[in-house]
């Protein structure tokens, strides 16, 4: 599984921490905003492109609160993105919403919680079944 990670300036430190943590666990992690100083709009747009172009299977985006990036990413066609701050949401949103992108707030979640959220997100699989009708509806919207 290919994982993309990205951030604006506020999320840079947590991004680097999570990239190192996930790589240590053996995941293939690419930095979608490496050496770039982007605002949350441009960074979230970059992440949406990476997922739309299937350059990664899952993506993690970090800004100070997470909420701005998720608003941006969800404006793009075919993108389902969740701002999460707990492991349960990270798992359930993959299982039920077929979410490919999560956003985290570097000012909201600490390093340890962020590590566990990312692990839960990556390990979860989409349940399909009855959930597909809702995903079809969302994807028709934009």
């Amino acid at each position: 599984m290919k994982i993309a990670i990205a951030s604006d300036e506020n999320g840079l430190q947590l991004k680097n921490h999570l990239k190192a943590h996930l790589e240590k666990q053996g995941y293939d992690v690419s930095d979608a905003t490496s050496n770039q100083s982007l605002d949350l709009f441009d960074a979230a747009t970059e992440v949406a492109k990476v997922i739309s172009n299937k350059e990664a299977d899952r993506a993690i985006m970090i800004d100070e609160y997470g909420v701005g990036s998720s608003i941006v990413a969800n404006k793009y066609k075919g993108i389902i993105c969740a701002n999460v701050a707990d492991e349960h949401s990270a798992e359930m949103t993959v299982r039920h919403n077929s979410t490919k992108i999560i956003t985290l707030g570097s000012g909201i979640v600490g390093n340890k919680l962020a590590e566990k959220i990312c692990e839960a997100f990556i390990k979860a699989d989409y349940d399909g079944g009855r959930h597909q009708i809702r995903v079809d509806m969302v994807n028709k919207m934009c």
Partner: protein
Amino acid sequence: MKISIGCDHIVTDLKNHLVDYLTDKGHEVIDNGTYDNERTHYPIYGKKTAEKVSSGEADLGIVVCGTGVGISVSANKVKGIRAALVRDIETARYAKKQLNANVLAMGGRITGAGVIEETIDTFLETKYEETEESKKLIEKIESIPMNEELIGDEQYFDEFIEKWNNGGYPAN
């Protein structure tokens, strides 16, 4: 204030509680459903609730589902909507103050009643404070091309509902 509210069948009781909570505080509430616990689909209610806000009929929107994700993503797919999925009060404060978020989303299976109520209070009370940075960010969000065909179209999801009714989706 005039508040548009919506939920899926997982958290109807919470939504009903929030309708009473807001009404008791003197707000006018548009309840977009769902109204019972029969299995339904969150995009229907995310879209309905958000459209009342984007049209100006309501001042702000509140959406809830299990995690808050599905219904907030649906609301956010409506042009002009900035739906903030939050799990704490400070994120709601920020979302209103700096992003001028117009829909608040929470997960009924994630966040407890006390935090949900205070998050709503904070979201409604906090004023948007425009800065050069926030203005630019909102303009950029507005510049993303959005599908406008869906606005006000109550038959928009019929093809999927028909497929569902004909057993076209697995029931598990």
